[in-house]
């Protein structure tokens, strides 16, 4: 608990026009308990308070402060309030939260084919880049971005996206968060965390398909 603050100005000085309102407000704000400031309408930016409070009110408040001794730290909720004030409001993320309903055990399995560096794990919102091949249970390859001899080799780029944001199927979002940079893994994803009952119409993925992806996590930004 801080020592009780001392009076900075005498009564005469307080009444004098030489003492600017802002100084007085600053003193009170620095030393008074939050509830005190609240009651006397002295919370907020000094400029704003200066506009709305009269000098006389400030002098009265100043004197009351020393009378009541409601300094900082004397409020029971002071600490918590201070912490709350200190918290910066982060800009509300523009992503809509996808409902994460606890459905029980994860609907994918992972087998590591090649170990990664085990240090660089992606967090939600990081941009990851990967090479991948996707097959159905019967072995049909339905998608890949790995250049084969047939394709124009050098034009291929790894797939980049922000992980953990619901932009990709859930099996990928959850799976990639468990991988580290350089890792190659085999993800077997149940339809519930892939394309479900619908599959991908007009594509090779039928309804209720379990998907198998071999994924190499190349980069994490």
């Amino acid at each position, binding site marked *: 608990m801080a020592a009780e603050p001392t009076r900075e100005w005498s009564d005469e000085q307080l009444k004098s026009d030489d003492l600017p309102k802002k100084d007085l407000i600053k003193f009170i704000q620095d030393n008074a308990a939050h509830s005190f400031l609240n009651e006397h309408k002295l919370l907020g930016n000094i400029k704003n308070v200066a506009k709305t409070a009269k000098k006389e009110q400030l002098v009265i408040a100043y004197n009351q402060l020393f009378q009541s001794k409601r300094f900082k730290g004397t409020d029971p909720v002071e600490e918590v309030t201070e912490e709350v004030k200190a918290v910066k409001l982060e800009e509300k993320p523009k992503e809509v939260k996808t409902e994460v309903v606890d459905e029980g055990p994860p609907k994918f399995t992972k087998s590591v084919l090649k170990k990664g560096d085990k240090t660089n794990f992606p967090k939600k919102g990081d941009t990851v880049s990967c090479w991948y091949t996707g097959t159905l249970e019967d072995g049909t390859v339905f998608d890949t971005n790995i250049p084969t001899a047939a394709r124009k080799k050098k034009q291929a780029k790894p797939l980049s996206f922000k992980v953990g944001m619901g932009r990709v199927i859930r099996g*990928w979002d959850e799976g990639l968060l468990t991988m580290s940079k350089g890792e190659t893994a085999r993800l077997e994803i149940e339809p519930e965390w892939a394309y479900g009952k619908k599959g991908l119409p007009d594509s090779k993925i039928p309804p209720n398909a379990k998907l198998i992806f071999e994924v190499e996590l190349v980069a994490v930004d």
Partner: protein
Amino acid sequence: MALEQLSDVVQRCQALSNDSYATEDHDVFTIAGRSCIEEGNSAQVLSIVLDEKNQDMVRCMGWNLLPPLIPVLLKKEDKNLPQCLAIFNHLMQTCRPKELLIGLLEQLEQDDPDTIAESLHLLLSPLQKVLLCLGSRKPSSLGMTLSSVLDQVAKLPLPLTKEQEEDDVFSLCRCCADLIDFVRPFVNEARQNLLTTKTHGKNIDTMTTKQNEMEDELRTELLKFCMKTLSHPLLEVQLRDPDTLPVSPLRMFATDILETLRAIGESLPSLVYQPLLRRKQVPGFLEEEVRYPKESLASLAHLVFVHHLAADTFPSVFSPVFSLRCTMEHILLLLSRTEDCRIQKGLELYEKSLVRVEDSSLPADLLEIKTFLTVPQNLVKVMTMCPRHDLRTRGLKVFQLSIDKFNTEAKYRFFQYMLKTSRHSGVEGYIIKNIKNQIDIALQPGNSNTWFEGVHLLPLLRKVLSLPDGPETDLLQYLDRIMESLNLLRYLVIRDKVTENQTGIWTELYKIEDAFMKPLRVGINMSRAHYERELHTTMEAKKKKAKEEESVLSVSVGDEKLPNMTSESQIQALHSALHTFDMIESVLVRIEELVQVKDDP
């Protein structure tokens, strides 16, 4: 005469060096040369142009001869064709590329569709050769050329049916194919540039900054080209599937454009999902909105998701909900327009995006996203106001599909929103019918939820079981809504047992009687009385063959004023109205009966 003048000036200039040609020399050469060609003396012009001694002059001034040459080349049956062709080819080899470019571009400007198509077909190849010689000015000149070419293409009538595409009467399809051939070397160059960049990195040692800039500029011009074509003609035409039309020039053109985008390093997923991806501002020439016009991106999304072009290179890992959220922006754009082709594509894209999502899976917080509210509003406009019947019907189908994809809470909130904002009795009636279906589902064992029974249902019901203007409500205008509300009330009263009261209707009933049933009764009586009196008056007037009253309004279509309604028609309409009131009343009476039965067991 012209020939003499031409010979004179040529002779004079043979003695001079090419930087001392006077302006007069230029002018005389131009005017005389053009006249000679126009008068049919192209053979002489050819010999002059081929003469060794005249090459400096030809290099300097020859390009001015292009204007009369091109029409001859386009005519094809002209007897001067061989000579003119020879002149043309020689000029192409001799004159400066910069000037040839200007001359050729000028000749592209035509007015009638046939000439446009023919001149494009003729001139694209020479233009390509000229551009390939241009060096550092190439990208901007290419951009200028592509812009002019596309302006001309925009003047061509579009094929609207499969047969028209096959016939290609106005040669639009051929122009598109010509265009692809035209840009091919530049696309290949851009592709090569990217590969060298990839393998060596943006290495300042091996490439100058100027070279870098040039490569960027080339990519930018090609991007502009692709974006423009996505808007026109691609957004305006209907692509046919391989089953319908195995060889489709337009589909090939679209595929080539997508391939071009890939060649210049644009990722299709990034483009299509752009609305939701905060892309870093690309430093360079164009602002993002100019670089990626929204309409072009919407067209691209349609090509990718509805026509499945480039399907084998589009990753199959994106979540259907994410995909839907992105395409909603494109759909909004397309449905906000009035052109049939855009509305149709908007509906198709919407349908395709919804179909991939499981029923009853979309959560209510999606409704916090603006497009999920504005798209249905636009859809309502289509359903109620689009002149084409098939689009209205399809709009309704997609509307219902979108409802089916929402989960229960989302459906509830959506219904609330639509009832508040649609301002259309038919739409409100349709929503009320949906509400009834949801209540029916909720009442089935195992489907219980708090939205369509229990605590949330009553506030919704209160909004539904009400008259917009109390007893003075215009029953005919609000017929659809009123009938559905009555049907819903009747359903509730039959389905929900008094002893169970799962929906809360029985405890609410007295309020509904006051707010809905009684005012409705009053309204019916008032309306009936009013219309019966009207009917009587009209029939009296008809009997007396009294002069038809001056109507308060007249209606004109085009410049013709429509005739007033005949007495017979008026009487028919009034009878019809009275019949409607009877219909409303019969349901109301039935409800009252059912309620009474439950009251007095």
